[in-house]
């Protein structure tokens, strides 16, 4: 598909981005920055300045026109020191949707704001806690008086901290995508917190009037599916960063903490379990780079969905294994909110459940692949 020159160029570009991101992460991110539940608009701006918001956007939208595989190392580097800002939800997912529906003035405008770091968007697509199929109950009804949105969406990140929402709705059997401001009349947020303390909300739309200009698409089913897959791989990449971060902290602890006059890392039973965690880390790295490559090379919707589920099934599972064991290896101190390792567990709980957990993606993988395999 690409020749060697392209490949070399791509690798060089990836390296540039990753270096910049790593430097940013070292400067701006830390577990301490994770603790407050609120998003820093300044850091959000900073992420935009790195080009992260624009990576997946095409050239004509002011973006870099990169692919998901290019984003993986950057997200990994940001996940490792813990990132409070909802880069995957509000940039990767929202951005992919906007790019997908781009021939539209409003979408182009939103994209421009997004690329500049001036927009914090939420994507309201999910209506139950399950990784559901295509049926959408939220409706966009249109008549001579205009357009009206009604329904309920759950698990919308970043809740009321969002400037506005991209909402999927059933419009005469097709999937529409509309832009709704969070303070529009008829919009009600039930705010909550994710496990890691981030903002999230259930949004109720009670006959919300929608301007025609804010209807970004009336046939967005494929774009939505594909954007969710991109976000799923992106979330998996952030999980890989979490795994690496938790591993570093835990291995350091094993190398230094003493009990019974011995460094606890010298106890063979912990050593062997550490080896198993390392295997989980390496499997995760392999799984995600393969999924990204498969996704890019995919010819069919089924292949894309398979790639995304493969990544999320492995990463959601591996990250939980690693962070749970990290707590156990830390002993009591790991269970207090005072030690950073707990933040890794909480962030992992959040990201591993979001967009479908391991069991849900394993089930989807089975559906997608099984009749060939068994």
């Amino acid at each position: 598909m690409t020749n060697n020159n392209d490949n070399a160029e791509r690798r060089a570009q990836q390296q540039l981005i990753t270096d910049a991101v790593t430097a940013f992460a070292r400067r701006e991110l830390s577990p301490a920055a994770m603790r407050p539940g609120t998003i820093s608009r300044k850091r959000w701006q900073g992420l935009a300045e790195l080009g992260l918001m624009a990576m997946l956007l095409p050239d004509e939208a002011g973006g870099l026109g990169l692919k998901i595989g290019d984003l993986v190392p950057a997200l990994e580097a940001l996940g490792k020191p813990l990132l409070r800002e909802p880069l995957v939800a509000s940039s990767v997912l929202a951005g992919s949707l906007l790019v997908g529906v781009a021939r539209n003035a409003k979408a182009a405008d939103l994209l421009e704001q997004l690329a500049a770091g001036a927009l914090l968007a939420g994507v309201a697509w999910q209506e139950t806690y399950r990784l559901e199929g295509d049926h959408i109950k939220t409706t966009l009804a249109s008549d001579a008086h205009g357009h009206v949105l009604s329904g309920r969406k759950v698990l919308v990140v970043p809740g009321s901290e969002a400037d506005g929402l991209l909402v999927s709705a059933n419009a005469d059997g097709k999937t529409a995508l509309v832009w709704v401001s969070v303070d529009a009349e008829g919009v009600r947020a039930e705010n909550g917190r994710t496990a890691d303390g981030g903002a999230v909300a259930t949004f109720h739309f009670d006959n919300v009037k929608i301007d025609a200009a804010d209807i970004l698409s009336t046939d967005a089913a494929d774009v939505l599916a594909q954007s969710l897959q991109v976000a799923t791989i992106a979330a998996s990449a952030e999980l890989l960063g979490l795994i690496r971060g938790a591993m570093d902290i835990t291995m350091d602890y094993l190398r230094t903490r003493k009990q019974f006059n011995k460094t606890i890392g010298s106890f063979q039973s912990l050593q062997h379990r550490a080896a198993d965690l390392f295997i989980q880390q390496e499997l995760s790295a392999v799984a995600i780079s393969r999924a990204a490559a498969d996704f890019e090379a995919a010819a069919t919707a089924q292949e894309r969905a398979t790639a995304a589920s493969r990544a999320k099934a492995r990463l959601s599972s591996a990250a939980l294994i690693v962070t749970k064991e990290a707590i156990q290896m830390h002993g009591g101190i790991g269970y207090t909110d005072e030690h950073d390792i707990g933040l890794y567990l909480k962030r992992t709980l959040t990201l591993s459940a979001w967009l479908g957990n391991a069991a849900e993606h394993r089930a989807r993988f089975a559906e997608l692949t099984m009749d060939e395999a068994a």
Partner: protein
Amino acid sequence: MTVEHQNWNAMSDDAFRALVRNFFATHYPEHLRYSPSRRRLSEMRGWYDTLSEHGWIAPAWPAEYGGMGLDPGKLVIFIEEQEAHGVARVPDHGIIMVGPLLIQQGSPEQKKRYLPKILTGEEIWCQGYSEPNAGSDLASLRTEAVLDGDHFVVNGQKTWSTLAQDGTHMFMLVRTNKEARKQEGISFLLVDMKTPGITVRPMRTLSGHEEFCEVFFDDVRVPKENIVGEIDKGWGVAKALLSFERLFLGSPKLAQSALARLATLSVLTGRDRDPIFRDRFAALQMDVDDLNGLYRRFTAQVRDGERLGPDVSILKIWGTETFSRIGDLIVEIAGGAGMMDGPSAFDGGNFDTLSTFYNARPSTIYGGTNEIQRNIISGNVLNLPSA
């Protein structure tokens, strides 16, 4: 306080069960039922008083000391009904740890001084064993008590003291002889928390509760007679408590109520009809059943007056790890709701999908990590050589 002591043990099991069930239904506050995490004293005070007034606060203590004196069969019924009704634990270190210990090993004066106030709830006990640098390696503790006239002067720091912020008294291990080998030279001390020089700092846990505290001792003067057993022989005193603690920590209670929560969530999510879930639930059900069987085997040993051997460690391992597996499955079937802090609204009702998961985390750590328990089994039960 006058309490009418009945001969519960003479009742038929069925009659006793009905009585207990009725008692909980009548007296236990509705809003405190099925509490996912540990309740503070302020919330449980009313219930403590109710139990106390009816003479039901210490079901396992002998009647002569003010307990119900239940035999193990009746005690099991009591616990089962407590569990079935979703009755939360009161702050019970005095009732389940200090009381039985003093009854066994305390001086007559100590029994007289402390037991009645545990029964009334006037005095609430907390534990002072672990230290920041002596977590699982308890014997390397460094908090020291130096004799000065008729008082010990205590300096040092304890940690992981459960709900110490609510405690009026602490039972603790202190080093009274620095020359002796690790496990020797440790004494078992009873301390009034109001004594000057004590600072309590609650620690917030992952689940957001202030369940544990750090406690600092700065020249704290404790009367000499507050030692239980002999000076420098506190390790033996504590050890008796430890194997009892393992039995207690290995109780099927946690796993059983977690399984009930799992069943509830499976109905809320519709997973109760999913063959994959049913297969895993069946496996966990059998794991809990066999945990129950193990527990009864060890309680029968206690009932028959046998000393608990080191093999009781298997109970703590299996109990807490079964509990943990159930917590994992709750998170798994919660799907997207597994990312939410606190309760999520399902069609059939609210459910906190992470509380069991969080509660399972410390269970495999406290009371001697499960690694320590496995060391005990391999060394003291299977007689595998030390490294």
